């Protein structure tokens, strides 16, 4: 143990690390490992069958696909929102700044019902989209819209402080050297905020994968079309198929973990390249 202990003027390394491990165990690790243990009730064949039925496979595609697309859209537009909030002054700025956090605070079911009301065929927005042949509510697009809604704050709130920290001198220096606005953005600003943007993307993505409340209202939950994996888990639970439910949970856990790990590696790589560490 003492080999890992570094001399530091900060006291309490042992205590702090011990507490951290205990806390993480109680809150995160034990509940998660319970899912794995529960799954062992199933034989390997049963497990494999439960997690690869066509209906389940379709739900993976929708959950991860829509989450990824939503996180991607949030990365672009969240960056834009953060940019506007940091760079410009306009009346009502504080209000908009507060509005960004709303998807955090709003009960997800409320968000789902509101979105459904808006995008349904007779809703405020839906009535104009329907004649164009675009159906949002009760389709995969609806799932995507709901996931975009709940993911937005993550990108804005991670990018905003980094953007605020960029000294205006850097941009002035670039301009003095002859760079135009686009070059300054692409070569100076974007590389600086990229790690934060990746973090925001990863958080939005992770949140979207686990989202349940807002999606089930707008999705319509048609098997093979607009049914997300978390809903399948709930369905199985309601049928007292606990092992089947946890099997799905385990698959989602593993995939999510791998995806987040990959994103973290990308981030680490990006940070090392830009030597901001």
């Amino acid at each position, binding site marked *: 143990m003492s080999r890992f202990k570094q001399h530091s003027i900060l006291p309490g390394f042992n205590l702090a690390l011990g507490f951290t491990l205990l806390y993480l165990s109680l809150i995160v690790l034990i509940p998660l490992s319970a899912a794995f243990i529960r799954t062992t009730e199933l034989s390997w064949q049963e497990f494999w069958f439960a997690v690869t039925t066509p209906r389940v496979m379709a739900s993976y595609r929708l959950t991860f696909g829509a989450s990824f697309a939503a996180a991607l859209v949030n990365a672009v537009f969240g960056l834009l929102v953060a940019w506007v909030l940091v760079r410009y002054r306009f009346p009502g700025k504080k209000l908009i700044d507060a509005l960004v956090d709303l998807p955090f605070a709003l009960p997800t079911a409320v968000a789902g019902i509101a979105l459904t009301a808006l995008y349904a065929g007779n809703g405020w927005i839906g009535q104009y989209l329907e004649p164009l042949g675009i159906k949002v509510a009760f389709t995969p697009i609806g799932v995507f819209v709901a996931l975009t809604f709940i993911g937005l704050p993550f990108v804005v709130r991670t990018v905003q402080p980094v953007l605020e920290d960029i000294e205006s001198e850097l941009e002035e220096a670039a*301009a*003095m*050297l002859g760079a135009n606005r686009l*070059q300054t953005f692409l070569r100076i600003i974007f590389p600086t905020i990229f790690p934060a943007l990746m973090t925001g993307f990863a958080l939005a993505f992770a949140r979207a994968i686990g989202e349940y409340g807002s999606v089930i209202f707008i999705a319509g939950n048609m098997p093979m079309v607009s049914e997300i994996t978390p809903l399948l888990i709930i369905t199985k639970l309601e049928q007292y198929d606990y092992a089947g439910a946890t099997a799905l949970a385990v698959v989602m856990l593993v995939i999510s973990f791998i995806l987040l790990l990959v994103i973290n590696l990308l981030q680490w790589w990006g940070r090392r390249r830009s030597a901001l560490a």
Partner: protein
Amino acid sequence: MSIEVCNLSKQFGTFAALRDVSLEVRSGELLALLGPSGSGKTTLLRVIAGLDVADSGQVLFQGEDATDQHVRERQVGFVFQHYALFRNMTIFENVAFGLRVRPKDVRPPDAEIRDRVHELLKLVQLDWLAERYPHQLSGGQRQRIALARALAVEPKVLLLDEPFGALDAKVRKELRSWLRRLHDDMHITSVFVTHDQEEALEVADRVVVMNEGRIEQIGTPDEVYENPASPFVYEFLGNVNLFHSRLHRGRAWIDGIEVDAPEHAEAEELAAVAYVRPHDIEVDRTAQGDAALAARVTHVLSVGPIVRLELVRDDSEDKNPIQVEISKERFRELQLVRGDQVFIKPRRFDLFPRRIH
């Protein structure tokens, strides 16, 4: 390239940063803008660079109006106090930046960029750091890289905003003389901002002393130091002693010592202040005639070739010590110790009518 600045004014809210400033920077000279913080020197530099826009007035480069020209088109090199190096790029890429962002048709080929960057890195004697990142460099090294980066685009004018302000004293002194030598080699018209009078007087060809958005005096370091045009310049450039005085028809009484003041021939019973530099005060053990003030030595600092004394007048209510500097030789002659009685006489002084507040 010469720079001309005509009647520039700039207001930040209710604060007037520049008040009707006019100035000419001659081609190839190294000019210092010197003043306390808030004197408008940095604003003036930024307006010349095009980073700030003045409310009124003009900036001319080589006689041509550049007031509305964009920063990118001014061909100005700018060095920031805090370096403003691009953290996400290597030193090499930092210096190459100005060349790389050029439009395709005027961008030099890669090999040429490489040669040019290495040439510049050699010029600032940091060729061996090309592949490092800015955060791996010391402050002095970063500032030299910032300078190399500014020079890479072959600017017609070099502007430096407190270039040594963030560095420690020793590095500052080194870089100062290095900048002077560099300028002597390159002869690029340069303007630098500083609040350090020693720096300005040591490095610059000419010094512009600024205060409260106005130019107080322009001149060579000798001129501004030896003949300050205003009480502000006197007090800002080096130590100075103030004596209550009275002016009347070409005569002055400096704390009772009567002297000639021909430049104030028209003055009628005017209250004034005499400004006397510490080295312009004669010290004696005995009164030489009646034109001397009695004082007592309260402090002696005899380290180095110049001995600094602090004296307090016997008769005056003014208990501010008088600063005097004498040579070591003179100090040995007088053999002064704390508590000794001496007689002092201003050798050179300038009289300014007392400003009415």
